């Protein structure tokens, strides 16, 4: 397994491990999750864990990139962009309809929920990116 493939696995694992509990908390406790320490904590945790994982990978595996890596990266970013675009569009449409008809959504801090939803789309896009890379590395090796 190449460094890049291992990196994709590491990124996917870290993303799932950090963001599943994060979004579970944010969507279950929308008011409590407004605490900035929650978000700062998530950023710190994911940065540190991701950095440690990649340091460990770099010690044991040489980082090389060739045309096959570039093709896989291009396809994975394309898929990630599509997920992000569809997700952002759905959030936009949902926000619009909830703005013109507030009864559509229960009484929650609307802006924070929209921000969390957009961030969720971004994280989903990143997971699509890593998953596509993993699938293509398995298929093209």
């Amino acid at each position: 397994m190449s460094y890049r493939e291992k990196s994709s696995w590491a990124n996917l694992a870290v993303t799932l491990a950090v963001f599943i509990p994060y979004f579970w908390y944010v969507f279950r406790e929308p008011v409590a999750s407004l605490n900035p320490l929650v978000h700062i904590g998530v950023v710190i945790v994911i940065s540190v864990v991701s950095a440690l994982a990649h340091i460990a990978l770099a010690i044991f595996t040489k980082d090389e990139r060739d045309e096959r890596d570039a093709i896989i990266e291009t396809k994975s970013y394309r898929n990630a962009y599509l997920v992000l675009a569809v997700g952002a569009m759905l959030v936009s449409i949902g926000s619009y309809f909830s703005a013109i008809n507030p009864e559509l959504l229960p009484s929650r801090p609307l802006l924070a929920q929209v921000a969390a939803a957009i961030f969720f789309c971004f994280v989903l896009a990143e997971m699509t990116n890593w998953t596509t890379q993993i699938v293509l590395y398995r298929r093209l090796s």
Partner: protein
Amino acid sequence: MSEAIIHNQIRKLRFEHGEMTQQALAEQVGITRQTVIALERSKYYPSLELAFKIAHTFGLGLEDVFQYEPTDSS
């Protein structure tokens, strides 16, 4: 739309050229060993430039290394 298969003789040619390792070939043409493995298994088709580099490494023409086989007739 017809799908083509591109066969190659890379593995055989490596052994015929002083039992060249996958790593040695990878370093000569500027790719990773994993890509050499993918090429030998026909899981990945090289770009034109890479195909020429590989053929040049073995001192052969392109069609001596890679063979095109259409699977459906158009």
